[in-house]
């Protein structure tokens, strides 16, 4: 590949400007460069310095002088730019321009590739810090041209491929010279993404959380490698360490991913420049808090074509709203003083970039900020302010000549100069030939009218009220007219061609019969000027673009979001049947006061001032439901199944606070969910225990002080019975040995670190930090707890014995459908069982699953909970608990604990939640009836004393959604009628994860193989 590039460069050098020490074999050496002076222009020397009637003087590729009193050398080439505006040309920090990309490796068969395909590099193919864009160049004239058309002169190019995608170079869009001159800096940046390389099929990472864990491990490994402790060569890590001082760019994407990138950066003391996606306004406070500089795309969605109401129904309110809100993004970023630069990288059609930029300015983005974001700011980030981004002395002669204000819709970019080379986009100073003429040829006089836009002239030829069809082309100074003759039977034409001469146009005419003669068109005196003006005014009015009202941003910014984050209230429930879940049991006609997010009082006739009174007569108040096993609210992948252990990943990294299923769960009385990794591997990832604080951020939802968990899994899924192949283990026998292996290694790892920490040797070098081993070490230290996906009794028994051999205990078995067979052993070990009420029949290992499982385990003293593993069932967990009354005669109060206090116990948060007790968190639900009854509906769901779901307000919420949809539908229809580009209505793809969902995209909603 590199040889090809070099050849291309050599080849170019034959007709480009050769370097002065190169041999010259195609002629004689020429070196003269004239001064060029552009005069009488309005010049933006920088985003903040504007000069009127100024001159820009440059020679070769650099600015010699700029100002209002520039002495122009004799014989300099002069370009008059009266009325024009000159800007430094734009800089894009985020392009893939001119990168020669290798083709992705096709997958061969169905076999999964677990190991790296490279030698001497990092163990993971998706880590490519050694990749250098400058070694893979293929300058593309056509693309360069399209970027120059929208004002760019200098770009940073990366190959956007891989989790660590390698370095980018800074170069110019200079067609006239070769790479030797274009390249300003070979390595300016290192690019990170959350996406795998397309060049490798190595399965890890298969999820977003996997990518995040991988990046962290690279940082640890690079630090360790730098100490010289590695016995082997790792070219990736060597390059990574060498790239440390480059700009670190993170292509993050959507709103939550930006916060995720920032989080990693903060952990390792790196200030990423974060590439955004245009939705920053949705969480502007959090964006602000990151303190990062953002690269913002200007890709606004096209209007949805909602003319078919059936199809239109499928477009979600959030998508419609985004169409309305997106153009305001930059205004909001500017108002909040977020530092940003702009990129055209997301625009499929580069021209949209300029249109959208102007739209953003119209919608409130200050022009100075816009200009700075395209010039000064990126130059500063690149530490190249002396060279690009301004037109100060010594800077590159990279500038634009614009007909007026570049942010004005009507302005055109006439010229884009790169390194002193002229690129004409739209010829300036064209002489205006519009007007009315007396056209004379062949002894006949016609009335000729030339009108229209300068670049799109129209002509009309009339004699004796007869209109002669006329086509006009004007390529200064040549005018060509093709006029249809009177003869309508035989199509014949007069062809007139000539040039402008003061007030006349004149030249040669060829008549229909081939006779040549001459023609003259003499301009008439202007007569009806007044009318013209009126017309112009009308046109102006028509084109005046209107800025629509911005739809309110809600938290989250989708249906059922709140205009502000809901806040804590003091609430007094009067006369409720209270299911305390404590030794007091169920209390009738009882009052409960919640205050400051806690349960403050329980009793009869409580009275307080300033409390919101809820009459709960005939209703039931319970602790909120806790789902011990949930996969809602997770972004891009619930399984990191690329390896048989993935202890290094954590769901806490990928909590998706904007998932509608949070709200749906609230509607079913759920107040917290334990978000688990899937069951694709024996050692899964770490869990996230969240409170369903709808509208809050992931960080605010995660319960920070709750004990930490990790998911393990056994049986069919981990031995790949129903998916994949080729990974150890393939049997239950192998599963045990996976644990033996990992815990043995974890012990050795601990020992190594203990020795290091104890050593007093001043020259001691720290061992390699391994995130996975750290986590396994936490398990051995009883600081992290296992919840294990399990089905059959043999494997359940096995894992308890493994744990006992390593001196810890399993905290919870989840699913545990054959738990009833070994309930006595479970009780002895002290492990809890979190099971389904009545699921079975979906795979072979559940053939002995029985709905009496919960009752039998409970009978043996196992702490039992009923969980969902399913976004639908999780909002009916009260019904699922009630099934324990049916199957096995569990008492109602005990059954209720299966979804409240018992999961709290299993998660070791029962001191804070799970029952109604003074001092506990105010996570409560008001039900219309006995919560175990099929007829019960959750009426109010409260988390930390904040009402997040209120059945009584549902009608109002729906009305708001309906109203906003119809307002937006009307503006979408208006947009279509105006002839704006539209897109077909798209339905939002909301999938649901289960234990066995593989990959990042949750396309198929299925629960077949839990």
């Amino acid at each position: 590949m590199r040889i090809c590039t070099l050849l291309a460069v050599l080849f170019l050098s034959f007709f480009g400007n050769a370097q002065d020490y190169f041999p010259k074999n195609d002629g004689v050496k020429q070196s003269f460069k004239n001064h060029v002076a552009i005069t009488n222009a309005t010049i933006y020397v920088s985003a903040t310095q504007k000069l009127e009637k100024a001159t820009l003087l440059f020679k070769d590729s650099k600015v010699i002088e700029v100002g209002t009193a520039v002495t122009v050398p004799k014989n300099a080439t002069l370009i008059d730019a009266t009325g024009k505006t000159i800007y430094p040309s734009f800089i894009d920090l985020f392009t893939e321009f001119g990168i020669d990309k290798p083709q992705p490796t096709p997958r061969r068969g169905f076999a999964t590739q677990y190991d790296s395909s490279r030698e001497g590099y990092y163990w993971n193919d998706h880590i490519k810090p050694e990749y250098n864009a400058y070694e893979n160049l293929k300058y593309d004239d056509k693309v360069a041209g399209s970027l120059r058309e929208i004002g760019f002169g200098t770009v940073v190019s990366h190959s956007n491929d891989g989790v660590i995608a390698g370095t980018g170079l800074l170069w110019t869009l200079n067609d006239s010279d070769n790479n030797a001159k274009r390249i300003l800096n070979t390595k300016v940046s290192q690019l990170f993404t959350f996406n795998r390389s397309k060049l490798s099929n190595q399965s890890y990472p298969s999820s977003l959380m996997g990518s995040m864990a991988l990046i962290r491990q690279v940082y640890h490994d690079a630090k360790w490698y730098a100490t010289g402790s590695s016995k082997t060569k790792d070219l990736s890590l060597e390059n990574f360490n060498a790239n440390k001082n480059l700009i670190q760019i993170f292509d993050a994407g959507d709103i939550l991913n930006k916060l995720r990138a920032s989080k990693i950066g903060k952990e390792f003391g790196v200030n990423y420049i974060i590439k955004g996606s245009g939705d920053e306004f949705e969480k502007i406070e959090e964006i602000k808090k990151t303190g990062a500089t953002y690269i913002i795309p200007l890709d606004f969605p096209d209007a949805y074509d909602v003319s078919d109401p059936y199809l239109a129904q499928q477009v979600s309110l959030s998508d419609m709203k985004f169409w309305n809100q997106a153009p305001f993004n930059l205004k909001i970023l500017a108002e909040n003083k977020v530092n940003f630069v702009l990129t055209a990288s997301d625009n499929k059609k580069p021209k949209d970039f300029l249109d959208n930029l102007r739209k953003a300015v119209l919608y409130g983005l200050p022009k100075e900020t816009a200009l700075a974001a395209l010039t000064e700011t990126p130059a500063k980030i690149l530490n190249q302010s002396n060279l690009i981004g301004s037109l100060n002395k010594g800077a590159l002669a990279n500038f634009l000549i614009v007909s007026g204000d570049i942010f004005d819709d009507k302005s055109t970019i006439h010229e884009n100069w790169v390194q002193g080379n002229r690129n004409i986009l739209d010829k300036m100073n064209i002489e205006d030939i519009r007007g009315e003429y007396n056209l004379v040829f062949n002894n006949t006089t016609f009335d000729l009218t030339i009108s229209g836009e300068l670049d799109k002239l129209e002509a009309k030829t009339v004699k004796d009220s007869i209109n002669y069809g006329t086509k006009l082309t004007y390529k200064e100074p040549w005018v060509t007219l093709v006029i249809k003759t009177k003869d309508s039977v035989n199509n014949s034409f007069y062809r007139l061609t000539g040039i402008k001469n003061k007030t006349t146009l004149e030249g040669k005419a060829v008549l229909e019969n081939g006779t040549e003669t001459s023609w003259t068109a003499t301009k008439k005196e202007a007569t009806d000027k007044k009318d013209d003006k009126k017309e112009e005014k009308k046109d102006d009015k028509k084109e005046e673009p209107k800025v629509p009202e911005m739809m309110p941003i809600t938290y989250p910014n989708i249906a059922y979001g709140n205009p502000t984050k809901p806040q804590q209230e003091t609430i007094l429930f009067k006369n409720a049947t209270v299911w305390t879940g404590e030794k007091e049991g169920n209390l009738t006609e009882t009052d409960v006061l919640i205050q400051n997010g806690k349960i403050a009082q329980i009793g009869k006739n409580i009275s307080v001032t300033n409390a919101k009174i809820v009459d709960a007569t005939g209703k039931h108040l319970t602790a909120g439901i806790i789902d011990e096993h949930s996969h809602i609210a997770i972004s891009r992948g619930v399984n990191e199944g690329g390896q048989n252990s993935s202890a290094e990943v954590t769901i806490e990294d990928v909590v998706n606070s904007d998932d509608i299923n949070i709200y749906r769960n609230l509607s079913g009385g759920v107040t917290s969910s334990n978000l688990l990794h899937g069951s694709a591997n024996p050692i899964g990832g770490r869990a996230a225990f969240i409170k369903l604080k709808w509208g809050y951020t992931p960080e605010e939802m995660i319960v920070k002080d709750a004990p930490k968990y990790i998911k393990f899994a056994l049986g069919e899924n981990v031995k790949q019975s129903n998916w994949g192949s080729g990974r150890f283990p393939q049997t239950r026998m192998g599963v045990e040995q996976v644990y033996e292996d990992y815990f043995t290694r974890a012990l050795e790892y601990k020992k190594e670190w203990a020795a290091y920490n104890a050593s007093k040797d001043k020259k001691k070098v720290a061992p390699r930090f391994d995130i996975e081993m750290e986590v396994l070490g936490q398990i051995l230290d009883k600081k992290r707890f296992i919840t294990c996906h399990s089905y059959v009794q043999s494997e359940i028994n096995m894992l308890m014995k493994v744990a006992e051999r390593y001196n810890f205990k399993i905290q919870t078995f989840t699913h545990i459908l054959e738990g009833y067979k070994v309930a006595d052993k479970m009780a002895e070990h002290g492990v809890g069982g979190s099971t389904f009420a009545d699921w079975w029949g979906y795979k072979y290992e559940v053939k002995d699953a029985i709905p009496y499982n919960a009752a039998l385990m409970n009978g043996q003293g196992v702490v039992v909970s009923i969980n969902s593993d399913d976004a639908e069932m999780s909002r009916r967990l009260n019904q699922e608990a009630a099934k324990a009354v049916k199957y096995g005669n569990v008492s109602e109060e005990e059954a209720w604990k299966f979804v409240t206090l018992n999961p709290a116990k299993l998660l070791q948060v029962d001191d804070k939640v799970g029952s109604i007790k003074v001092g506990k968190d105010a996570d409560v639900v008001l039900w219309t009836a006995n919560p175990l009854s099929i007829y019960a509906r959750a009426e109010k769901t409260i988390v930390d004393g904040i009402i997040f779901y209120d059945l009584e307000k549902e009608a109002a919420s729906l009305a708001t959604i309906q109203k906003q949809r119809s307002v937006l539908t009307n503006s979408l229809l208006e947009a279509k009628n105006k002839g704006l580009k539209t897109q077909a209505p798209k339905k939002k793809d909301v999938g649901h994860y289960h234990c066995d969902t593989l990959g990042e995209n949750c396309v198929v909603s299925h629960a077949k193989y839990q």
Partner: protein
Amino acid sequence: MKKYIIIGLLSCFTYGQQTPAPKQTKSILITGGKAHLGNGKVIENSIISVKEGKIAMIQDGTNFKPEKHDIYIDASKKHIYPGFIGANATLGLVEVDAVKASDDESEMGQMNPHIRSIIAYNTESGLVEAARPNGVLLAQIAPRGGRFSGTSSVVQLDAWNWEDAVVKENDGIHLNWPSSYSRSGWWAEPGGIEPNKNYEKQITEIQDFYNDAKAYLNSNPTLRDIPYEAMKGLDTGDKRLYIHVDGEKEIVDAILFKKKNNISKMTIVGGYYAFKNIPLLKENNVSVLLRRVHDLPLLEDEDVNLPYKNAKLLDDGGILIGLQNAGDMERMQIRNLPFYAGTCAAWGIDKERALQLITFNTAKILGIDANYGTLETGKSATLFISEGDALDMRTNKVTVALINGRSISLESHQTELYDRYKEKFEAQAKE
């Protein structure tokens, strides 16, 4: 004790389907129970006489002196219901979802009206026996997949073989209506859900198939065409057309199809947005077997409780509706059929009307209402006694169930395992 040993041995070999009960020979009298007739009516203190498989008499038992019967069942403080009917089910067609060898629910190809579910129906399926203890005693077994999935039949759930199980053979043909939306891309790079460009074409294919079938059936072809032959009976009403469809626009198109082709009996299966087409459904006499009640809304913006309220919306509109539960884990979930009805009641439908959604209404739609679906004199004695409200999980405890007067076993592989381990632990506790 002996009983358990025998059962224990059996379960080593099979899922242990219970032995079907023999034909009713002895008359049964059930007294004192609260009878929910399935047609909206209730008899608080009922008396039910069951003879030769039929309800010989049912009436208010207060101050009534019945004649002598062989067996007396005291149902006082208990509830009596007609057997629940699982419509559009795949019971007995798949045993274990993940085991391909046990899967017989979907044939290859698109136009399969000739594919008959009944012959693959496994009366000894463990899922069949697990449905019965919750009151599900009848089911319509329907094939899945393709455009025309095939022909369904209605069975009772206590039989030696499929022939014995038949209540109504080949009751209808199932058609999966195309969707005006389809998913683009593939799993690793999903392209989102976009308008289905082939929607009109797919409808035309259905119409063409129907036209050809009709032409075939109205002529005297020398060569047999099995799929077209199977289409017989749709215009006469001998077979019902079940169109599986949820979308608002698609439902309109499906009804237009019925109108255009003079299809006599048609039911929408799914019908999530049927409530938006109530006048059209009514005008064309189209009933609905409603999409699974325990489900998530299809769209983000929708009422989060819409799947629960849907039955109420249609019922208020005067549409004949029944419940069904096609979808993930549908076979094992069929025992939750009563709780789907219960949920409909929680969200607005009167409880007795909710009961109709899984009894009388379903029987009417399936065309078995002459014999099943309600507790009425002269109808089949397919009923059960529950300790309490059978639509509520807490109180759905079936003690006696009759199918055609035969007192069926309420045991299953699951109850047997329960008993075994309960005994094990009880014995351990004594030690």
